[in-house]
């Protein structure tokens, strides 16, 4: 089997049966990275030396017959997840030389399984964007069309998996940052329920919305990675004490009788015709599998983008106030006469334009005189969005929507911040409500660009959406990008 066709479970079998060594597997990906990543630009840091050491350690464990599900498996990691001793930049000049003295909890969990880290993937600066074009170091391109963006903010992770520069990757999702790039790059991405995965060691953007998840070749692989990273963590007070099931255990079960809701607002004007038609076709395929399609409505969607940006930017303004040029991160080289000047210069030199805009918006909506009109109103809208989801889930098991209003576009279209924000319409409500959702490819447009659909599940019911995504994927033949 060729590397490009190997899923995680194929790798597990090949490693355990000694058809391939962990080092050979990693080397295959590093060869691809050397060959293609000059153009794709999916990685900010490639960690080949470390990876080969990890592969050797993994091989010892495999040889002893003590391999865990991910032992020896190569994984790419989004560059906002702290990796001890390995640069973690958040794609920002302000963290250009930051080397974390500790591992994020997800990395501790993965290292406990002896994974092999291929490197750190590019992203929008501080995960703020939907195109990976705000990255200070690597403006990733889409493997399907190098003149298009890969989506974002986890665009590096999605492009790496799509171009076979990694078999699976960690991403993070604050408003769609796993699902939308997965959709644009023709791969599968899951954002788990808020609190499923510890955020300890994830560089904070918007703490009530951020969640770590997986981007892989299919739903089954994403489930395998989730199995390894979920669970309560004493270092994250918001992490859930819920039991962690085997997220792949329901794969293969029948879709008969599963109720799938289609909120009409997600299929209205503003969604490209080809996207709408392709997702509706997928809905009909579910019907053919025995699922029941349910009409429903989510009137609050009209306010979702504003609600999301008010909440996210308010939290970002607070979270990013820690960057002062003193404790860590960029420090201006200009001689400063005061503490204040040092902070202002360091921050102004270190942050990019989009991050600055969001800090300004966050401080605006938290300011005296505006707090009630904007931030508190957004909190009220969050409660309304949650209520509407609860009402819909009383009548269904899963909600199906497009992942993005369009397929991937050219970088020139990212110049207008407002239109970029509006493009998040299909994904932000999931974060506002803290629900799990998975995006998988359901077709291609006339130019061959991937179209993604999202399956949204009830809280802590990731296995429902993994099962449904897998059921679709079993009857779908993906078209690989031409490299």
């Amino acid at each position: 089997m060729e590397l490009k066709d190997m899923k995680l479970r194929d790798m597990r079998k090949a490693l355990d049966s000694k058809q391939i060594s962990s080092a050979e597997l990693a080397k295959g990906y590093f060869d691809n990275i050397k060959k293609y990543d000059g153009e794709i630009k999916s990685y900010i840091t490639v960690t080949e030396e470390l990876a080969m050491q990890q592969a050797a350690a993994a091989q010892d464990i495999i040889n002893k017959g003590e391999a865990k599900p991910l032992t020896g498996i190569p994984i790419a990691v989004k560059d906002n997840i702290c990796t001890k001793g390995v640069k973690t930049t958040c794609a920002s000049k302000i963290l250009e030389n930051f080397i974390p003295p500790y591992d994020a909890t997800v990395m501790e969990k993965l290292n406990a399984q002896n994974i092999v880290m291929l490197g750190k993937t590019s992203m929008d600066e501080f995960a703020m964007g939907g195109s990976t074009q705000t990255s200070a170091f690597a403006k990733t391109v889409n493997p399907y069309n190098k003149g298009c963006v890969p989506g974002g903010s986890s665009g590096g992770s999605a492009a790496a998996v799509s171009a076979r520069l990694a078999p699976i990757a960690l991403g993070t999702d604050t408003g769609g940052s796993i699902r939308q790039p997965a959709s644009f790059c023709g791969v599968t991405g899951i954002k788990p329920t808020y609190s499923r995965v510890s955020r300890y060691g994830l560089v904070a953007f918007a703490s009530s919305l951020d969640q770590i998840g997986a981007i892989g070749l299919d739903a089954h692989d994403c489930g395998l990675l989730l199995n390894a990273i979920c669970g309560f963590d004493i270092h994250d007070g918001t992490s859930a004490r819920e039991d962690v099931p085997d997220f792949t255990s329901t794969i293969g079960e029948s879709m008969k009788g599963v109720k799938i809701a289609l909120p009409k607002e997600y299929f209205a004007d503003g969604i490209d015709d080809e996207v709408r038609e392709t997702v509706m076709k997928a809905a009909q395929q579910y019907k053919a599998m025995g699922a029941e399609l349910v009409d429903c409505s989510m009137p609050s969607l009209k306010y979702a983008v504003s609600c999301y940006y008010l909440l996210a930017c308010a939290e970002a303004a607070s979270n990013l106030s820690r960057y002062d040029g003193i404790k860590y991160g960029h420090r201006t080289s200009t001689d400063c006469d005061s503490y204040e000047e040092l902070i202002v210069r360091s921050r102004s030199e270190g942050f990019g334009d989009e991050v600055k805009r969001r800090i300004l918006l966050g401080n605006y909506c938290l300011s005296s005189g505006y707090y009630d009109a904007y931030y508190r109103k957004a909190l009220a809208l969050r409660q309304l969005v949650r209520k509407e989801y609860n009402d819909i889930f009383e009548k269904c098991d899963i909600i199906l929507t497009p992942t993005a209003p369009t397929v991937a576009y050219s970088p020139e279209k990212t110049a207008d911040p407002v239109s970029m924000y509006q493009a998040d319409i299909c994904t932000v409500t999931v974060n506002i409500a803290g629900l799990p959702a998975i995006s998988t490819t359901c077709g291609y447009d006339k130019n061959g660009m991937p179209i993604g659909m999202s399956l949204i599940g009830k809280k802590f019911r990731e296995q429902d959406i993994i099962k449904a995504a897998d059921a679709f994927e079993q009857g779908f033949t993906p078209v690989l990008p031409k490299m």
Partner: protein
Amino acid sequence: MVKYLADLSKLEFSEQKLEETAGQMTDIINLMDTVKEIDVTYDAYKDNHDVFLPELRCDSVVPSMATDKIVSNAVSSDNCFVVPKVVE
């Protein structure tokens, strides 16, 4: 207004950048204004009633990260952060 927000945010912009940013912020705030159209009230109790106090961490002393690691990404001297002189 944007100059005031920049000061609050500990950011500085050139005159040209400030003008450009002001234009963008006007468009962004126009988009945010859609939340004013709907009459909803925030219920703080709903968001906080499920905080389960017995699950919070015990207030006990535990080992923390070594100082040399904490200052490893900073300009430091004798394991202390270095800042510009702030007193005469």
